[in-house]
């Protein structure tokens, strides 16, 4: 039997990434990010805009394939899967909720929520029952027969949440789901998401802002400039710190030399 490498993940990690690199047509998005997600936890990815939260979520959920590094889900390599296998993985095991609700305007609310089940071939009746149950749990059962156009943003976002949860997936990826909402609605949505996930044993990866992440998450990973924040910050202090001369070019210095 082959001994596990030193940096092998703990057994209870459901999803993990090791030194993932990804660039958006040349500009670096992720630079060597490693992260492990434990079974059933709510992990918050925090960091400012452009720090690589969304890219990391899309790599972990199989939307994007990292240029270097590995993604493993339940001891299955995701980074080597073909497009079809990743699609099936997303469909069967993952849920996704983004900053926009991305509801289909021509479908009724319950049909939107039931769509993942219908796409996997569930019967009309069972899909409707499951969707309506989740809509009731999220307090939007009254809107089930309306079109998404008649809903407020907070309600639409809850429908998107119901759609992400309706198959009771292994992992729900939430990419700044509270971005279009006001504070009271934000807190409510995050509480709803984490409560539902905890009661159904669903792992949640939540990309969000610092204070929100701290409020609801079990653990936080902070990203900065495509790196884990600790590495990025220590790199920056090594360069800028103590006033001493440095051999390295500090990031952002090139921009400062412009005289606009």
């Amino acid at each position, binding site marked *: 039997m082959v001994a596990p490498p030193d940096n092998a993940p703990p057994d209870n990690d459901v999803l993990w990434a090791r030194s993932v690199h990804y660039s958006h047509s040349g500009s670096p998005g992720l630079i060597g990010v490693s992260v492990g997600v434990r079974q059933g936890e709510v992990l918050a990815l925090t960091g400012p805009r452009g720090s690589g939260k969304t890219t990391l979520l899309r790599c972990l959920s199989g*939307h994007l394939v990292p240029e270097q590094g590995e993604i493993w889900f339940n001891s299955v390599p995701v980074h080597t899967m073909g497009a079809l296998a990743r699609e099936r993985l997303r469909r*069967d095991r993952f849920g*996704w909720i983004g900053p926009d609700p991305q*509801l*289909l305007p021509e*479908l009724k609310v319950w049909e939107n929520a039931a*769509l993942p089940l*219908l796409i996997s071939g569930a019967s009309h*009746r069972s899909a409707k029952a499951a969707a309506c149950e989740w809509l009731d749990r999220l307090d939007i059962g009254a809107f089930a027969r309306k079109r998404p156009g008649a809903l407020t943003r907070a309600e639409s976002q809850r429908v998107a949440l119901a759609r992400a949860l309706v198959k009771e997936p292994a992992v729900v990826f939430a990419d700044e789901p509270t971005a279009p909402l006001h504070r009271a609605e934000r807190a409510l949505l995050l509480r709803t998401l984490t409560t539902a996930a905890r009661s159904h044993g669903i792992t949640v990866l939540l990309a969000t802002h610092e204070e929100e992440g701290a409020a609801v998450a079990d653990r936080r990973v902070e990203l900065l400039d495509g790196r884990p924040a600790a590495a990025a910050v220590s790199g920056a202090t090594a360069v800028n710190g103590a006033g001493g001369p440095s051999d390295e070019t500090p990031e952002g210095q090139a921009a400062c030399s412009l005289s606009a």
Partner: protein
Amino acid sequence: MLALRLVRGSRPVVQLRRLLVAAASAGTGFVLLYVLAGATARPAGSFPRLLWALVPLAVTAQFAVAVARTDPATRPREGLDAVGLGPVQRVLVAAVSTAIACTLGSALALAAFLHLRGELTGLPFDGAGAGLLHADRPVPVAAALTLLALVPLSACAATALALRPHPPLAPQTALPWGIALTACGLAVEAYAGPGGAGMPVGWALTAVGLSLAGPGIAYACGALVQAVRPGAMRLLAGRTLQEEAPRLGRPLGVLCAVGAGALTAVALRGRGGFGVPLGPLTGPACALVVLCAAATLLTRAVEVRQDRSATHAALRDLGAPGAVLRTAATLRATALVAVCGPVVWGVAQLTSLALTR
């Protein structure tokens, strides 16, 4: 100038669509010039021929509008909005780029016309159509230019009208009108019989009726597809069709009308003649009309597809397999063919019965 820059910098597919508009415009321009040449040689009976030439003009304008709608330069874009190019300016850009394509087509038509009459020399087929195009009679320059300007001007005006911001109509509202007009047209044809002035009037009424009924027909197709406990595929196919009926329906109705006309012509030929003599360009002009109508419907489908890219992305985020989406699109097309085919056939049969009784 901005319109020219945007035209110059766009992708090959977009350029190809504009070239198709130019080709359609060239064909229509040539038909108009042919009618003019015929009118100078034989003034008697030239007015109905000119009226028939309005059919290619109308479908060309419709095609130009459809292409202008899919044109990336005329769609809401962050880049253009950021530099202050709002909806009104975009309408102007669309009208100008349509006018450019159509003017190019008209110029080509004029060159081909003069060349085939033998007035431009030095190329093959020089003067090959001298007899057909009545090269012995001079064509009035002002009339030729007026007719040639008709295509760019009508396409330009139609584009500006169609792209101006206005709320969409519900697809079902025009269905009763469409059915009523189609029935009126059939009745007029049956009453007037073959060979009279009733035939073009009746046919025009039928065509307008069918094009008005198009959105309603498409909506009904969508409703049928998603009826009774639909799964994901029928749900996506049917609801999309219902949602897009206002946009797909009109060109669908026009294609139905054109198809009914073509089928009627085939049936009439089988039953012993049209009652009116056909010119040498009738066949090519009919082909132009059919191609333009079909290209318009396809272009509208491309536009719908462009507009639904966000929905598409949402479905891909859910992990919807590509096969489901493709099958849904096939199902939509099949439903439209299955419903429109019998309608076209029925209208054609009734028309040919009315004209040969």
